[in-house]
């Protein structure tokens, strides 16, 4: 894990940087509309470099998102993209992947998108082990709608819908995703783009459902809680001796919410949804899977 940068990542720096390597191919002509300093810039940077490193072609990549600041993501990468509905990232992604095994499908979205309105889909995509990557942008707030509490907002946090104080205990997304049977679970931090990029790459490379949780400050609507300042002091790397095949150890680590460990929590190899469906085809006596949709050219 690299050095944790203490300053926010500004758009200008990034632009200069990406011009100097081959990642430009993955970058959309549209400039991100995020606020300067928003953690999301690092994530966009990380995804493009991961795809580049893994040599996955833009044409074979589909980025699916819901609604939120985070979900604007697909517009800012030069791949196929689908900006769907609030909370429906995962079922749409499941549909895309089920229709065409050859695609690399990356689902992205915010904490509200994924764990509030979309919460009902999480456990099912995990247990089915759909071979997609889900990158969750956790800023602990609703950014796009201008600052309401989210399911990961801290106790005592004051927002426009909790003007006195938030009394709802936040969820623990990592623990949840582990308990659902996700076959790859990790955590990154927008303030540490180097490490983040590595994690994204691993997550995409994993065969099966990978869940990457990213702590990412909202510089506009959270001035007190999940700021770069606070998070920089809290995050720490996962100890070297952590056994990523040990589910109980991963769950124990996930409980450490005040000093969030960054890195790979858990990894397991098991059949994917597509494996199961192919097996069913065989069990039915049917021919080879013919579903992969091809462009007619």
């Amino acid at each position, binding site marked *: 894990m690299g050095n944790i940068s203490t300053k926010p990542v500004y758009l200008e720096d990034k632009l200069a940087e990406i011009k100097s390597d081959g990642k430009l191919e993955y970058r959309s002509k549209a400039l991100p509309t995020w606020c300067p300093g928003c953690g999301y810039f690092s994530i966009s940077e990380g995804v493009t470099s991961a795809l580049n490193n893994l040599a996955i072609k833009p044409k074979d990549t589909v980025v699916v998102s819901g609604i939120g600041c985070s979900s604007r993501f697909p517009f800012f990468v030069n791949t*196929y993209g689908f900006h769907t509905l609030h909370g429906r990232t995962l079922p*749409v*992604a499941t*549909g895309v992947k*089920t229709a065409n095994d050859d695609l690399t499908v990356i689902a992205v979205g915010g904490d509200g998108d994924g764990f509030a309105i979309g919460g009902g889909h999480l456990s099912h995509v995990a247990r089915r082990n759909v071979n997609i990557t889900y990158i969750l942008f956790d800023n602990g707030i609703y950014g796009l709608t201008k600052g309401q509490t989210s399911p990961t907002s801290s106790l005592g946090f004051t927002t426009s819908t909790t003007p006195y104080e938030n009394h709802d205990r936040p969820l623990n997304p990592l623990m949840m995703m582990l308990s659902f049977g996700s076959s790859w679970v990790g955590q990154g931090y927008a303030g540490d783009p180097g490490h983040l990029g590595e994690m994204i790459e691993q997550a995409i490379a994993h065969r099966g459902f990978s869940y990457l949780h990213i702590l990412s400050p909202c510089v506009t609507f959270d001035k007190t809680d999940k700021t770069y300042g606070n998070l920089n002091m809290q995050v720490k790397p996962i100890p070297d001796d952590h056994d990523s095949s040990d589910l109980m150890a991963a769950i124990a680590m996930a409980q450490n919410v005040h000093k969030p460990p960054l890195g790979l929590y858990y990894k397991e190899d098991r059949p994917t949804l597509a494996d199961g469906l192919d097996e069913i085809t065989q069990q039915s006596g049917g*021919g080879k899977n013919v579903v992969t949709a091809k462009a007619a050219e």
Partner: protein
Amino acid sequence: MKNTDIQISICGSAGDGTIAAGDILKRALAKGGFKVIAFDVYPPEIRGFGKCISRVRVTTEQVYSLKHHSDVLVSLDDSHAIPHVGEVRDSGAVIYEDTPISGVLEGSHISAHISPGQIPYGLPVREISEKETSGNRSRNIVALGYLAGLIGMEPEIFHETIADKFRGKAIKITDMNVAAFDKGYALGQKTFKLDDVTVGKAKKSRNKDATITMMNGNAAVVQGCMDAHIKTFFGYPITPATTIMEKLATEMPKVGGRLLQTEDEISAIAATIGAGYAGSRCATATSGPGLALMAEMLGLGVVAELPSVIFVSQRGGPSTGLPTKTEQSDLNLAVYGRGGDGQIIVLAPTNVEGCYKCAGKAFEMAEQYQTPVIVLLDLYLSNRFETVELPKQSPFTKTSNKAAKKKDLEGGYKRYAFTKDLASPRALPGQENGMHTITGLEHNELGRPSDQPRMHEDMSAKRHNKLLAALSHHDITIEKRFGDEGDVDVGILGWGSNFGECLEAMFKAREEGIRCSAMKVVMLSPLPLGPINDFMDASGEVFVPELNYEGQFANLIQGATARSVHSYTRVPGSPMRVEDMLVEIRRLAKIKKAKKIGKTKKAKKKAA
């Protein structure tokens, strides 16, 4: 030779094998080359003591609905069957168990309820059954045999059907049931014959390119899906749509298709739209409550201009309503139930063959016009059996996607290009140089979010106008007029499963000398306004019968034409009574006459 037209009702509790007996009956007759239309009624309860009725009408020529009166009622459970004795026509037969069971309460035996005009046929069903099969398991088959003997149907075809039914079980079971059947048959043959019932010879079809089979609406939907080469299906169980998914779960894998039972209906439609985005021929199936949950996602399908097919089988509503009863009350939801200006295509087949056709064509339309397409059935149509002729060669395209060509991709691909036919060429994920992002936000031709007034106006127009082409989609009946082709006194405008009753009513009315015609509207959105207006022009009074309370179709028609119709609504949870419709048609015919006379009088006055 007289044409055959017999309707048989078998009534008992779920444990009695009521539905099974009806099933053997209709399959045997269909095998024999007759036309069959059949509909079962199930109990709403979970456990199996509720009332079941199996009704089978068998005819030489295809008819369009069940009759209100049956020729024969077979009781397998008197407590359930007694309320249905009245449904047997005068001089019709009631077949029942006549062995007295000790301790039976006064009036609880059906024989006390048979009216003088009806003919009682009692036989010792239980006794025969116990003799032929251990433990009285074949009461339904004994009764069935008796029925077949009474009416004079050929026994061989029943033997075959029974063997089919028990295929996979021990041979002994088949043999015992065949024996039970034969015992019943022998008794039936021996007894005095029923009047007004003839089993004529069945007609053979001469269409070499078609296969004649008997199936219900849901099975026809499945066949349509398979013949249209469906690739992916995502669904969540709900009565009366579940059997579509269940049958597809068996069939699709055999040809490499993929089916997934999702966690809910929102997920089902989301995945369907995701698969459609990826270029897959895809569908889901549900009923009213599920369709309600899909409302938001269907709006995305509209704006993103993606194909998806949604089979909706209606049941009684609103809310959980009457899950095992039929109704046509989800029309509003199907046509109007999306936020914003969210028009889509809605097809409502009127019979089992239409289910097949609409299912297959829905895929073509979804792809060609890039839109969600709802195929609106209801419990009555989903579960109604009819003899149908299905083409041996699939009449559906394998894909109707408008693929983006090289020239479309050059110089910045426009996913939502304004083209002549308003459907833009689609680049599919995986395609070189076609990368783009689609969104539920309003967008420009490139697909980029845009909130410019002009763009929103133009895209709204594109989304609506492109659907109009569906009105002349190749090889599908969008609407059709039956009966009198000229000016009539009463025009019946009908839709969906209820149209069979509309046709029967129309034919009956014409027999009575009423100038009457019926039009079915299969495409409910967009509406074929031209033919509808022509029909209204030709009809003195327009009669719109439907199985919902609010008169949803009547309202749809009035909204679109600003012309008034006579809305006729009933919500009994069962098919509409043709007799009741006739009363109304007669009344309207009189109004029409009165108006005519009035007009003539007025004209005369003025002239004077």
